[in-house]
């Protein structure tokens, strides 16, 4: 293992302990009167660990870089000619402008949908196994999470500027908004039940307001994909939405489905102008 990676992992182990302890003590002392104090403490530790050398999410970025250049599939080709919207192989800024309409498929696609398309079209790769490993777990790495981490990281320092101009992009936005407010299932929840007001929380967890453009949406979208300390994995927004629907008692949405892309379009639009700093690290 290269020295820098070894150091990253070891730095990580020490810091992980510090973070977990910090978050535990922060939530233990949290109560209405000291909420601000807790928030500031959590923010201080977030800043402390916001260091590429300490964030294991960068291991996913490194793996994603290798997967991007890896020749595989029936055509023994890499993904390096894949057009993510900025031109074949152009990665800088691609994540900041996704999802978007692609002429070749005449579809609005998010990053995951586009990568699966490139795997099929360029590599002639059977994506069954890739989709089966869409989310990582103990002993199961995810090519998709790694690729998303690598590609999203190439937009670091840039701001969300997704186009909503093509009629199909406009439709996606409108559908995403409608799905955001759509109540269903055995809890009668919609996304808006939890994410339509400022300063609300579930238990002690703050909830970003996505009902209007602004800072909460910008900061949320600008910090995913993220390394989840509680799950010991890098997670994408695709996974976060899957987890939201789980908690809403809805069935799991299909991976890389158009409804998830529509919601993503709505959320990225609300986050317009927000700076991308990924992968971040979260609870």
């Amino acid at each position, binding site marked *: 293992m290269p020295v820098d990676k070894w150091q990253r992992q070891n730095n990580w182990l020490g810091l992980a302990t510090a973070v977990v302890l910090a978050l535990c003590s922060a939530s233990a002392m949290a109560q209405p009167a000291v909420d601000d104090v807790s928030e500031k403490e959590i923010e201080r530790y977030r800043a402390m660990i916001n260091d590429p050398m300490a964030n294991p999410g960068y291991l996913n970025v490194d793996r994603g870089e290798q997967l991007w250049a890896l020749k595989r599939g029936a055509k023994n080709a890499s993904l390096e000619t894949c057009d993510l919207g900025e031109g074949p192989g152009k990665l800088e800024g691609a994540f900041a402008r996704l999802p978007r309409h692609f002429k070749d498929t005449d579809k609005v696609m998010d990053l995951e949908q586009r990568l699966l398309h490139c795997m099929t079209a360029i590599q002639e790769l059977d994506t069954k196994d890739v989709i089966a490993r869409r989310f990582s777990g103990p002993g199961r790495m995810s090519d998709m999470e790694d690729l998303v981490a690598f590609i999203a990281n190439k937009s670091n320092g840039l701001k969300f500027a997704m186009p909503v101009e093509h009629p199909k992009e406009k439709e996606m936005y409108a559908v995403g908004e409608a799905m955001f407010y759509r109540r269903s299932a055995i809890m009668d929840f919609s996304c808006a039940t939890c994410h339509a007001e400022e300063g609300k929380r579930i*238990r002690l967890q703050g909830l970003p307001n996505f009902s209007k453009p602004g800072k909460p949406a910008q900061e949320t979208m600008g910090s995913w994909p993220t390394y989840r300390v509680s799950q010991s994995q890098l997670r994408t927004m695709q996974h976060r939405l899957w987890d939201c629907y789980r908690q809403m008692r809805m*069935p799991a949405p299909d991976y890389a489905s158009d409804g998830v892309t529509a919601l993503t379009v709505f959320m990225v639009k609300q986050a317009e102008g927000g700076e991308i700093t990924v992968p971040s690290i979260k609870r």
Partner: protein
Amino acid sequence: MTHIRVTALSALAAGMALAALLAAPAHAQQQAIDPVIVDRYVAATWKSTSDEWKARVAQDETQRICTATGNNPPGADFDKTLAREVATVVYPTDGNVLGDWKRGEQVAQRGTGGQFSDTPTTARGGNCYACHQIAPKELSYGTLGPSLVGYGRDRKYDKDEAKKTFAKVFNAMAIVPCSQMPRFGYHKFLTEEQIKDVVGLLFDPESPVNK
């Protein structure tokens, strides 16, 4: 189709007017998109879902009305929704709505059950603390719903209020149409016994809620 859109539009207009009168938060929601298109996306998103689970994706009439009106059903829809929900409430046959507050606290704490990551036998809870402050000693509570500290005491342990509270937990929309709170009894998510225990937590003078 045109009819549905016109209805939705007039409902929205009336809803906006009503929103100004009601204190309930109205969502600034656009209903510009044809619901048929939304349904098509929804169907595509849960395409590989089993038939049993697909029932959760479909909206019942109340969920549909609440969605279409930004949770502010106007005039006739308000009355119709209220009447429909009131009719679903099943009270305990012996008339006793007060269960065991200690078990009620467990129901209020538990956040599992009914998720696709759970098994059919996973214990179910109301997860009340996710949204409400309840017993004051529990500091990890959410703020989506109002604080329930002193709930029974504030209502002078009135029997009719306790009965109304049973109805509220059984079906929150039987009290306030399009309430954000889950309809725990209507969906058969919690049992009658569990709902009684939660009412006990809120109404028993010995409950920490009222201490």
